[in-house]
């Protein structure tokens, strides 16, 4: 079943890219040979490209890797997220991974204890009444001493404003997933990863140069669907915010680490840290924007329209 699904995805990708090529050629008045020449001139990746390949791509016989696709898109001032998120079929295919489908109105979890329950997600802003308690739950799960030490009174909400917290609920208040992330500057991030600064300084984005990395501090779901859904939240943020150059994870959650490694995300560092007089591992990952968007799984997750996510305080300007 899994294998069949994948082949269909590939068909969709081929179709999307071939129509993109045809569109580009007509907009720029290029023949297939003209396009080949232009690509050859603009990038070394196309040194051995022949016109026949372009013809095959357009006819949907085969398709270049997402890496090459993104280079071609860039040459024409476009990007993969834009191209693929505009295609309904591709989005539908991607939504399968969070079981969000147009024919199923609400999302269902697939989990032993929550079998037939729907779940919904909520983005919780730092000045919301539930923020502190939801954040505490998230931190308890993550058990990362580099984040707010357990029991410490969480400082005023203004200082925590850069934190994005999204929680997934079943029924009224049963928490079934969450993700916690923020946009910071790479310099501050590396200092945080090397324990030169603490979490409050990391969140002090006003004092940093432009924020160019989205760092995920926790990401979890009780079922694979919710897990993927949480991931799609911050991947979508990265895809839509062009100022973000890197995606990073800094976590002590070995389940998350396992998932990232299965998705072929390279691990940056493993650092042993002390927690309640035991030694635990802190895992960090970092990848550039182009690495993220060329990763098929991440691209698919990023286009899932996060229509369920709505700020709970309407009218507060970002």
């Amino acid at each position, binding site marked *: 079943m899994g294998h069949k699904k994948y082949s269909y995805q590939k068909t969709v990708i081929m179709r999307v890219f071939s129509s993109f090529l045809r569109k580009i050629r007509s907009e720029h008045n290029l023949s297939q040979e003209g396009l080949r020449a232009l690509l050859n001139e603009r990038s070394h990746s196309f040194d051995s490209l022949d016109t026949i390949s372009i013809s095959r791509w357009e006819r949907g016989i085969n398709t270049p890797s997402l890496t090459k696709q993104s280079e071609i898109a860039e040459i024409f001032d476009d990007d993969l997220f834009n191209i693929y998120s505009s295609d309904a079929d591709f989005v539908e295919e991607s939504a399968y991974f969070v079981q969000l489908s147009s024919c199923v109105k609400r999302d269902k979890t697939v989990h032993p204890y929550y079998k037939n329950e729907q779940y919904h997600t909520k983005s919780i802003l730092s000045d919301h009444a539930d923020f502190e308690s939801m954040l505490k739950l998230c931190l308890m799960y993550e058990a990362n001493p580099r984040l707010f030490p357990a029991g410490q009174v969480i400082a005023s909400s203004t200082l925590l404003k850069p934190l994005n917290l999204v929680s997934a609920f079943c029924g009224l208040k049963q928490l079934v997933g969450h993700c916690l992330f923020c946009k910071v500057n790479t310099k501050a991030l590396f200092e945080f990863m090397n324990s030169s600064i603490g979490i409050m300084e990391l969140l002090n984005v006003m004092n940093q140069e432009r924020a160019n990395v989205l760092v995920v501090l926790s990401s979890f779901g009780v079922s694979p669907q919710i897990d993927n859904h949480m991931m799609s939240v911050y991947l979508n943020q990265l895809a839509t915010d062009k100022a973000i150059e*890197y995606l990073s994870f800094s976590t002590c959650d070995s389940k998350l680490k396992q998932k990232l490694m299965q998705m072929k995300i390279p691990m940056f560092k493993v650092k042993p840290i002390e927690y309640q007089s035991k030694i635990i591992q802190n895992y960090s990952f970092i990848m550039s924007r182009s690495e993220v968007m060329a990763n098929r799984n991440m691209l698919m997750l990023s286009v899932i329209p996060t229509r369920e996510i709505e700020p709970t305080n309407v009218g507060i300007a970002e």
Partner: protein
Amino acid sequence: MNILIVDDQQFVREAIKADLIESTFEHDFQTFEAEDANQGIEAIVAIEGNIDLLILDLKMDHCDGMEVINFLSEHASYVDIPLAVISSSDKRTLELVGSIARSLKLNLVGVFEKPINMDFILAETGRLQSQDDHKMVVKSPESISDYDINQLLADEQVLLCFQPQVDMKNKNIIGFEVLARMYDENGYIYPDTFLPLIDKAGLNVDFTKVIVAKAFRFWANEKTLASYTLSINVTAEDLSSDNLVDYIIRHKQAHADIKLILELTESQEIINQASALNSIARLIINGIGISLDDFGKSYSTYERLDTIPFNEIKIDRSFVCDIDTNEQHHLIVESTIALAKKMSVSVVAEGIETESVLNILAELGCDIAQGYVYSPPIEGRYLIAWVNRYVHKDIAANVH
């Protein structure tokens, strides 16, 4: 649940058994005991590796836990046994053993100081086991062995990234190190994944040729890059191929103005091979610089330093990244820089992530800096833009 306890002190074994009985985990525990490494190994074999948790003391009379660790790593049928290493030793020793166990690809639950908390260890073991069951819906259809490395290389699905090397005194860009990535339809493939595959397929030389060709083509085409050195990694295996050495020299001769440095990894092996030394001589004669990479990782490097007329030493990132907190690493880096100065070769420190490390290196007299503090490896297509931004920022900074 089968638990094997290997500890030379009977009291400790009794305490662990008592803890298991008191534990909040509802399992039928079947405990096995061993007094030393040999008994432990005998027990593992006797139980045919059906062990759900192996609790191993590090320091025992007449032997130590490392014997068991080595035994596990040498047998495919035992390498997956969940392992908890315990000790009254200091934390650093424990951490070291933990790193070793992990690098041997053992199934390490963790390293724990005595007195151990069995509830915690059982919980961690459970977490470790459930990771294998955690099925992802978004599943990449291929596993490592499914990469057709021959095809990928034939199609030249190789992408070059470049990491800048900066002069520590005047902050100018000196050059770039070439870092290769591969890719397929699902995304990027990284060196620790593809290098073993390339090695297994015997494609080392072909791979290096692709890198050299692409790098030279890229450099030759961009006037902005002409003044920067190009550093390419080669292995001892590469150097023993005359074919490859000729290939490199031909490229250098065709582009006399490009400054090329070859970074020799596995310096230890190179120093011992006559054919490699011969190749190095030919390269040097043709104006190609030589850099000793991963410096400090093997002790004998110091002994045979006079054998290779190298231009540069690169200090490995594992020593550099924490010199601000690790006294030992600070000493190692300090003495390496001092040595380099005595031999009149330049020193490159790689793996610099923070400014505090950068500042210490400046004080120690390091010549060249490389690391995330300046930039992660940059894809070819973004390189010129990065260089322009850097140069303009530099000029702007100097004006002020």
